[in-house]
């Protein structure tokens, strides 16, 4: 096993393979970070639309709750297949990358809505009453009372979920999106040893995920230390 590894390694880390893996890495990064960014934006809007004292209107509130519950309770692979076939049957011509991106965005939105809800609920009730008594508009409550306090609660866990989505994008290899896991499978089929292919991408994934997670923990420690307003 080890002799074969030493024999294969120079050939595996040749310029073409590295470019191939670099391209795949770029796709993984785009898929996870873009997906998480869009998803978090949608999730925040959902949380605001869901809250009865912000913009919550009964039908939107119900729909948003149903969406959040449903998308958090279905495995990523099943969501991916549903969206994949839905696009296929609708006849729309979209790339596999877009399908995977849509899946990441929709899942990220559901998780972010939950985190943002916790953030909004962290604002104590008397402040809501005070704002109402002082005739603040909903927009003013959101931007001047809720947002400045809740971002400290909301921001750190988002990085933990971002790591989750980086890891979930490996499942997108199932529909043939050219990301790290799929690239490793292709290289493995081309005859490179499984240890080299999967070992390498395990390390690459670790090098992406670990700093992201550490940054989240760093933020959590930093924001938690400051006195609450």
């Amino acid at each position, binding site marked *: *096993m080890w002799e*074969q590894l030493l024999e294969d390694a120079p050939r595996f880390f040749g310029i073409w393979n590295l470019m191939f893996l670099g391209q795949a890495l770029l796709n993984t990064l785009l898929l996870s970070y873009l997906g998480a960014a869009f998803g978090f934006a949608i999730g925040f809007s959902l949380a605001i639309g869901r809250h009865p004292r912000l913009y919550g209107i009964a039908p939107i509130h119900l729909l948003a*709750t149903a969406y959040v*519950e*449903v998308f958090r*309770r*279905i*495995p*990523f*692979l*099943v*969501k991916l*297949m*549903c969206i994949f*076939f*839905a696009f*296929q*049957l*609708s*006849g729309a011509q979209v790339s596999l990358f877009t399908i995977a991106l849509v899946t990441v965005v929709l899942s990220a939105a559901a998780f972010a809505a939950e985190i943002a809800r916790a953030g909004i609920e962290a604002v104590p009730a008397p402040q809501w009453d005070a704002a109402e008594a002082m005739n603040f508009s909903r927009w003013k409550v959101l931007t001047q009372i809720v947002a400045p306090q809740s971002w400290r609660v909301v921001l750190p866990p988002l990085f933990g979920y971002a*790591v989750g989505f*980086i*890891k*979930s*994008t*490996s*499942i997108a*290899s*199932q529909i043939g999106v050219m990301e790290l*896991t799929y690239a*490793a*499978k292709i290289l*493995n089929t081309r005859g490179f*040893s*499984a*240890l080299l292919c*999967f*070992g390498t*991408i*395990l390390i690459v*994934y*670790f090098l992406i*995920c*670990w700093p992201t*997670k550490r940054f989240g923990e760093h933020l959590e420690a930093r924001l938690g230390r400051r006195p609450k307003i």
Partner: protein
Amino acid sequence: MNYNLIYSQVAGHIPYLLGGAILTLELAVISFMVGWAIGLTNASILHFGPRPARLAVRGYVTFFINTPLLVQIFFIFFVLPDAGILLSPYAAVAIGMSLNAGAYLTEIQRAGFQSLRREEIDAATAMGFSVPQIVWYVVLPHIAKALYPPLSNQFIIQVMTTSIAAIFAVEELTGRAYNVNSLTFRSLEVFSIVAIIYLVLTLACSLALALLGRWLFRVKARVF
């Protein structure tokens, strides 16, 4: 383009799919239990173990939390045979999921043990409790109450993660969905039904775990 959803062809396969749900639960329970044992051992090592052992546990947890489960199982399934260890797909998935769950459960249980305060034990000692009494009446109820919600949450995550087994041709819920799909070609119908089964399954598990927690430890867990 127009496409009509036709569920009648898939409806006959629903019992077959539900059979897969049992395998899904089985895989989730096995990986959760093994992961729990790993987590309990590791959390004890982190509290009482020597430095090299603590570093090893830290390394294990950091590595498994920061890499995708799918690639971990690929590694177990395709690399270990080179070293002479041949595993069935089911075993490879079960081992991968257990190791992965073990890392998360180490973190959860470490935090749970840390939440126990010295003062509680001191107070119990001052009241004349014996050591077994302290463990039974003070330590265990506190830890059970602190750990129950994150542990049940991890179990739900475990149920959803089992879908990855389908990629290795294990015939659990998602794996059977692939089978029905290749029989009927009613892809969207099959996968939407499977999505609903997962939804009902995880909701039922959440509800059961919340009721159990309320009954056993008086934990007020929320399902929604």
